[in-house]
């Protein structure tokens, strides 16, 4: 009886629409899987900075509520940390950490911050599913999130409390809200509520990372291109009648949300915004390996984001995504020629442009090339949508009477090896290369970037705890002091281990393989009088981390 009542209550909570149920299932599933698999993922350099900043932001809000008159000095004090990025995503991390770790004490500190990241991943999954359903029915809604999250690099990004997956989720959500506001590409009425949502989501997007600012001109370009036939046919009045309210909403709410969620700007909005733009316009170039060459300064190869995508997205998914993109471009061409009636030009332009623009932006030779796939990750949900739709359409085309057979078989062939790779590579998402590259081993042979930013450190913590001599001085190299502090606070790393600044003052050296830093490894050999590691972390035999120790420091 009791169980029956609980079941009835739970059923009442579920959305009535099957599409929404699928989306809700995806959101919950992604959230739970991310939460369950996060502890294995180490802390990257950027995450260590963001969580430190987020904790300060939480202090700001709690003190600002108590002392409203002190808001500006408090903002200057607490938001100075990591003021090169706005405050929205870090603010979410601050809330989840304050609630779950500091408040309720039900999670570790790191997991408390990361719950915010899981929420963004859940949002991304849900929106992908809803949009996929709208484009290609239940199969589309079921496949689109899988096409995104079963790319090992994307799965990895659903864990850390950083900015790239939140930015991707919010970019997608804004585009979806915009699409709904214009009537879902034409077959539904225009919606003012979705226009307001687009504005608020756009605000959250630009308040998360600077690449969000490209979204408004991109959406405007998509709309203009879609409206071009009407303009040619009916003149400028046609444009005025079709002008999306969402643009107005984005222009109003975008800056408002940006400013409201980033107190750092409050005291000197214009000068600090100028400094913020200047920082990103003149961002330093980190060294990066690409086909055996160390990229240090522009001009960088235009091929970089395209080939890295080809070599990191599991091949079956890649084929579906590329096929879906070609299919969409072909539909645009045919629609412009008036060849097919049932194609929504605004939808196709929106999906294609969002699939290509983030890649093309990073391809620009003077734009810094580092950070792997994450800098154009905003393109990937759109490619996932196009790939999922292409698989569904192929099923309908090849076996119209039983499309499920073909769609199901193709989905299984695309997703099974991808899932295998995700499981195999986890938690080394920054070291993931696909079967076309030959995995980590093939990529190492080709001279590609092996990993980045210290997140694989998580896998040597147990060995350090077990073998390091008491009070040993450890050089953590790519792992930041903030990351080490966080590991120690959560009890994952012994507190007696002491931070060393280099091999010269260390007894143990945790060498993270980076081609550009190899001199540090060889200096370790000199200092320790040994080139023999005492432990290591390997992916497919490829060294990611090798631990060296002076005599007596490793027991």
């Amino acid at each position, binding site marked *: 009886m009791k169980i029956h009542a609980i079941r009835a209550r739970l059923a009442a909570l579920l959305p009535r629409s099957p599409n929404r149920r699928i989306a809700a299932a995806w959101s919950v599933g992604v959230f739970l899987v991310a939460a369950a698999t996060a502890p294995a993922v180490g802390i990257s350099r950027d995450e260590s900075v963001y969580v430190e900043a987020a904790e300060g932001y939480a202090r700001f809000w709690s003190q600002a509520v108590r002392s409203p008159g002190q808001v500006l000095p408090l903002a200057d004090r607490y938001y100075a940390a990591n003021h090169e990025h706005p405050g929205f995503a870090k603010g979410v991390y601050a809330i989840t950490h304050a609630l779950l770790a500091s408040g309720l004490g039900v999670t570790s500190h790191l997991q408390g911050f990361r719950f915010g990241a899981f929420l963004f991943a859940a949002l991304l999954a849900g929106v992908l599913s809803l949009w996929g359903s709208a484009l290609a029915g239940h199969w589309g809604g079921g496949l689109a999130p899988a096409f995104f999250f079963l790319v090992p690099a994307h799965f990895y990004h659903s864990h850390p409390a950083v900015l790239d997956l939140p930015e991707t989720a919010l970019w997608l959500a804004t585009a979806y809200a915009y699409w709904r506001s214009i009537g879902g590409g034409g077959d539904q009425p225009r919606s003012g509520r979705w226009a307001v949502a687009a504005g608020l989501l756009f605000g959250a997007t630009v308040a998360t990372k600077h690449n969000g600012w490209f979204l408004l001109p991109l959406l405007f370009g998509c709309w203009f291109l879609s409206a071009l036939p009407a303009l040619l046919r009916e003149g400028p009045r046609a444009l005025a009648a079709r002008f999306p309210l969402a643009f107005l909403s984005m222009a109003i709410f975008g800056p408002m949300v940006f400013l409201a969620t980033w107190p750092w700007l409050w005291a000197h909005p214009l000068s600090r915004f100028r400094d913020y733009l200047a920082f990103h316009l003149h961002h330093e170039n980190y060294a990066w390996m690409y086909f055996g060459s160390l990229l240090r300064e522009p001009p960088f190869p235009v091929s970089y984001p395209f080939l890295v995508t080809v070599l990191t997205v599991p091949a079956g998914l*890649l084929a579906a995504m590329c*096929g879906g993109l070609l299919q969409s471009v072909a539909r645009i061409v045919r629609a412009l020629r008036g060849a097919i009636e049932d194609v929504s030009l605004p939808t196709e332009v929106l999906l294609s442009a969002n699939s290509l623009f983030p890649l093309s932006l990073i391809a620009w030779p003077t734009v810094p090339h580092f950070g792997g796939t994450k800098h154009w990750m905003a393109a990937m949900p759109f490619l996932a949508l196009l790939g999922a739709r292409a698989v569904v359409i192929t099923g309908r085309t090849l076996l119209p009477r039983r499309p499920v057979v*073909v769609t199901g078989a193709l989905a299984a062939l695309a997703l099974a*090896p991808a899932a295998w790779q995700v499981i195999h590579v986890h938690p080394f998402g920054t070291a993931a290369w696909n079967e076309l590259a030959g995995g980590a081993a093939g990529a190492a042979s080709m001279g590609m970037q092996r990993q980045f930013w210290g997140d694989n450190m998580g896998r040597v913590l147990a060995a350090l705890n077990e073998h390091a001599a008491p009070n040993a001085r450890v050089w953590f190299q790519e792992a930041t002091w903030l990351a080490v502090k966080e590991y120690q606070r959560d009890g994952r790393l012994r507190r007696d281990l002491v931070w060393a600044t280099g091999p010269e003052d260390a007894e143990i050296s945790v060498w993270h393989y980076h081609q550009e830093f190899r001199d540090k490894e060889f200096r370790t050999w000199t200092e320790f009088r*040994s080139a*023999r*590691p005492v432990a290591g972390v390997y992916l497919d035999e490829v060294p990611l981390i090798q631990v060296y120790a002076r005599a007596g420091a490793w027991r």
Partner: protein
Amino acid sequence: MLLAAGVAGLGVYGIWFSATLPSRLPSLVDWQAAAALVARDAAVGDVVALAPPWAERAREFFPERLPLHPDVPLPVLAFPSYRDEELLGVRRVWLVSLPQAPGYSARVAQDLASRSSAVDGPQQLGALQVTRYDLRAPTTPLYYFPDHLPSAVALRGEDLCESDARGGLRCAGAPPVRVSREVREVDFLPRTCVVASPGGDPSHPLTIEFPDVPMGRALRGHIAAAGDAGQGTGSPVRMSVRVDGEDLGEVDEPAGHTGWHPFAFDTTRFAGRSLPVSLRLSFARPAREPTCLAAATLP
């Protein structure tokens, strides 16, 4: 149809790749077996080479010194090519290869085979292959300068440098200059060399004097800017070599000229004698990257 074929074909390939990958890569037991084999049979003048060169997990398993001769090192080399490597003092190379690993190339094996008079193997140990190459013309140096730094004297200008606790030489001045034997990165590869930081005063060249150097027919070596390869922000360096007070020649290393650059001098007229050799380094300007210098006298 094309899309279905592409997805299906690449999907099947992806499954095959993931399914076969573990068997293409060595297990712990394979590594241990290879290390035990080499440790048992290695002799003075042997080194281990890896193919592909990224397979540096081998360093965890192979002994750093010969078990029967603990004073003799057993270096593990991970160079992409051995065609132009001098391999000073090396008589035999144990090639440990992963021939089924993705991206494997036979280049290293071909390089070694082209320099060998005899090849023993390959011996299959799981996914590893161990092959011994006996070099056709091993080069045994009479004197390897980096190994004799503790007996050398260094001067900065006219001022004598002092030995420091870490086995190097420290020369007073602003900033101080240190001379030491180190393993440093040159073009991403480890090179054992005498490392000298440029210091701040170009008018005070650094002179390193090695007493009693057994001379042969040649003095050969390499010079490079160490570390942070590719930055090219260093200083031009001129090295003058004197034997027993007589000028032998000069080597110019321009700034930003990355790479491990060879030099060679004919010393036939000094052959058979032990003489003092001085290496004088003149830096045009202070620079971040130290100079990495390796040289040897050859019979």
